[in-house]
């Protein structure tokens, strides 16, 4: 069972860090994306 926990835990660690990073990066470039949408 420990082995399953390790495999799932490592994957989740990537997923959580990925979600936080994506939210942060999207926020950083939000103004630029908004301006582009306005132009369109």
């Amino acid at each position, binding site marked *: 069972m420990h082995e399953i926990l390790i495999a799932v835990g490592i994957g989740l*660690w*990537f997923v959580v860090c990925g979600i936080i990073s994506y939210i942060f990066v999207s926020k950083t470039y939000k103004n630029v994306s908004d301006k582009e949408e306005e132009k369109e």
Partner: protein
Amino acid sequence: MFLAGMIITLVLYVIIGFLVSRKVKSADDYFVAGRNAPTMLITGSLVASFIGVGLFMGDVGESYSGFFAPIIVAVGVLSVGYIVGSIFFGRYLRRSEANTIPEFFGKRFDSRALKMLATITGTFIMIVYSLSCVQGIGSLMEMVTGLDYRICITIAVTVFTVITISSGAKGVLITDTIMYALFSIAAIVGAFFIASEAGGWFSTVSDMANYEAVEGILSGSGNLNYFYPTGTENMIWAVGYGIAWMAVLMVAPWQSSRYLMAKNEHTVIRSGIIASASVFLIEFLMCMAGVFVNKINPGMETASNALVWASMNSMPAFLGIVVLSGVLASAISSATTFLSLVSSNITKDIMQVKDTKKQVSYSRIIAIVVSVIVLLLCIWNPPQIFWITYLGATIVACSWLPVSIASVWSKRVTKVGAFASMLSGFLVSAVMKIVTVANNIVLPIYFDPFFIGITVSILALIIGSAFTKVTDKEKEERAKLFKKPEGENDPTEIKKTKIFVFATIPLGIVITVVMLVMWVIPYLNGLS
């Protein structure tokens, strides 16, 4: 044949170094590769500077000895360091337009003392790492060629010194990337070949579930006769080791300095994400290979030679040479980065040479002097690859991590807090680590130098900053880090970068599936 293969490999690296040196036209090219490196070169250099004999000999040896699960947990934790480090530290570092990391700290906190401390601690850590690299190369070459250890390390030091002084940072980026490609191929092909020699990947994993020569070699708790006696302690060690190494990937000078050479912030983020996936894949395959070698040849006296033995004895000669050249490449690529950084840090931050032509010549002379010192220390010090490498990771985490993160994300941190944090983290972790390693002391896991060192460093940061005020200059320097350069606003580039960052979410799912299919399911089938 192996001797000829290694000589040809080393000569090829020197030739590549000389060819690249023709492209070095200015001091900027020599020190920061003209700040124009694309994603591929930054990724190559990040991974090549990190992966070395510590993985191909150290981690493979640990897995051979039954420590697969704790090592893979640590690898899972640390790999994410590239993603977090590039997004939350690396791109702000690049915005500072500093030439070296100590220069960044000096500017950010308006403190020459902090800049000097960062240079001294960084140089110490990188020399420690260079020692482990050179010792690893020496052990590898001695085993493969049969030449005397001292002759082997003299050849290795000569090769990486020539590459570094001839081509500078630009050359290091290019040779690192070539070596990254070589050792990645070597790791993938080598792991599957060793698995087939052991009896096939899946059936070997199932067989190893009830392996008697090393109990629990593939179990989630690890071999309980190897290091700590319980699975819980092994996992706490693994998470602590993973965080220490994650700090290395996030802020260590030989990692984050690569971002100073990137073409733009998008390059920083994308290379961090590719590097993260590459490191996990290579580590997973190599650690599994270490376990498989145990089935082919149990009871090796020196576990760290497992992969080298397999390359020489259970692979066709050509493939063996490719794998060994890959291991050699990984060590030399790390050493070139360390040497290039140590010499530029000393020239720019300690000697403070202003003239750009003199900077390059002085840096080359310092590189030669440092190489001679490293060579003499290696001749004097017996090989002890794994623990020397761990010493460096602990010190980086304790001395640099809190200051680096706070330099970007804290409004309240002051130069006094930053200085106290870096100094106390460095001293506590270095002294504890050296005393425990020298006297062969195994402390209870909760008193590991990493946990004590990082706690002291964070406390020093908080207390030092609480009793002093942030100056206007410090506020101004921090504000500059949050001004996004105009050139970063290309919508196509932003879209691409967002796709890269989003890809880390499915990457996590893929990692889980790969581990379940290639390790957990066949292992549990073998148990039942």
